């Protein structure tokens, strides 16, 4: 057994142990902490599988922002935990264990008897890379070959934010999400929130730019920008914008809007919906990505901030 295999087995065992602990631990807050650590380790697995694009997304969105939104809810619902102590009976738990174990077994067998040679679309993607002028195959798939998926995914993000906002109570309708954070303007937190975002914004833009040729792209860049914005908000240096703000809404629809306009342009002047003219493919894709990054950053941050809680005037 090579040292690399040993490393992989240790990593897989730690990940699984953490997953089991996250499910079985009694406190929800601890489970959320466990989930953040789990996301971090899953990102390591993705690097090991040579899928760096996914590793970035998992580290930024799956474990990072997703873990934080869980953590916030767990901290808030902490006091209410005692009242929902009703656990299902032993029979239900045994049945659930049997069902889960059998599904896991079926999947494990499926992994072991996967066909050889494996079906793959990688050579097709790589041989068509010249059509867009981008060297990162994943960005090619996301932005050109399966652009429709990505566009609809932006629509899903928009629907999610509309859903979250519509949960506001009557007096907070159209107001600002989350509590107003007060912090000492000369304290350590404010210092960190002044020092980090400039560098973080540069890194976000770098990730977007490098996404054309290397792993990275709009999602990863957007997630970094979102976290920087929230850092400033949490340090009390800025307030969340009221969700009825027109400029905010413009940013939220910019990504899918630009995407749709380019797509319709393909329909009017080209052969099909979302068909990029070959000469302008790269600038068009980059333009869409810039708009998308802004939209993703704003959407992710506002999804994290949650439903409006204060009226806009206060």
């Amino acid at each position, binding site marked *: 057994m090579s040292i690399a295999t040993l490393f992989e087995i240790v990593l897989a065992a730690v990940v699984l142990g953490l997953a089991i602990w996250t499910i079985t631990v009694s406190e929800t807050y601890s489970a*959320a902490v466990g989930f953040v650590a789990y996301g971090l380790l899953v990102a390591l697995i993705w690097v090991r599988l*040579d899928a760096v694009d996914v590793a970035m997304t998992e580290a930024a969105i799956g474990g990072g922002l997703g873990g934080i939104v869980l953590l916030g809810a767990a901290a808030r619902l902490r006091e209410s935990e005692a009242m929902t102590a009703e656990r*299902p009976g032993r029979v239900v738990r045994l049945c659930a*264990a049997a069902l889960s174990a059998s599904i896991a077994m079926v*999947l494990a067998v499926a992994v072991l008897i996967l066909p050889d040679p494996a079906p793959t679309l990688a*050579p097709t993607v790589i041989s068509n890379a010249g059509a867009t002028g981008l060297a990162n195959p994943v960005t090619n798939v996301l932005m050109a070959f399966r652009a429709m998926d990505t566009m609809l995914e932006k629509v899903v993000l928009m629907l999610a934010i509309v859903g979250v906002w519509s949960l506001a109570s009557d007096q907070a309708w159209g107001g600002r999400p989350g509590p107003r954070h007060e912090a000492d303007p000369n304290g350590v937190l404010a210092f960190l929130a002044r020092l980090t975002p400039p560098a973080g914004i540069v890194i976000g833009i770098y990730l977007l730019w490098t996404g054309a040729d290397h792993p990275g792209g709009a999602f990863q860049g957007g997630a970094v920008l979102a976290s920087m914005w929230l850092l400033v908000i949490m340090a009390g240096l800025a307030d969340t914008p009221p969700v009825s703000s027109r400029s905010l809404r413009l940013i939220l629809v910019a990504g899918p809007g630009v995407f749709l306009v380019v797509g319709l342009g393909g329909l009017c002047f080209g052969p099909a919906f979302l068909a990029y003219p070959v000469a302008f493919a790269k600038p068009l894709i980059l333009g869409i990505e810039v708009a998308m990054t802004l939209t993703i950053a704003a959407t992710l941050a506002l999804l994290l901030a949650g439903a409006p809680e204060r009226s806009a005037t206060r």
Partner: protein
Amino acid sequence: MSAVTVFGLCAAAAVGVGLYGLITNPQPLRKIIAFNLLGSGVFLLFGIIGRRGAAAGSGNDPVPQALVITGVVVAFSATALAIALTLRLFETAGSMTLRSRAPTGPNSDPSAG
């Protein structure tokens, strides 16, 4: 044992663990966490299949990778929506059941959010 086998079995087990938690945990927030574990196991299975389909020039088939990236983002937005629903449920229903406690108003917890 290759990386594909090790992580493939790990992914299958993660799906099982997530499913068990989804069924047996009574609290909605725990169900959301379990569902995310289940989802990450499914994403890893995609990664395994992509890894096996690696070709010259890329270590992992880009098509499943793109699918997983889309999936991670959609899973995050679904999680955020589910959590907003849970919090709202607690705000409206929670204070009714817990008569002895003060209702959790929007400003009683200065740092959450």
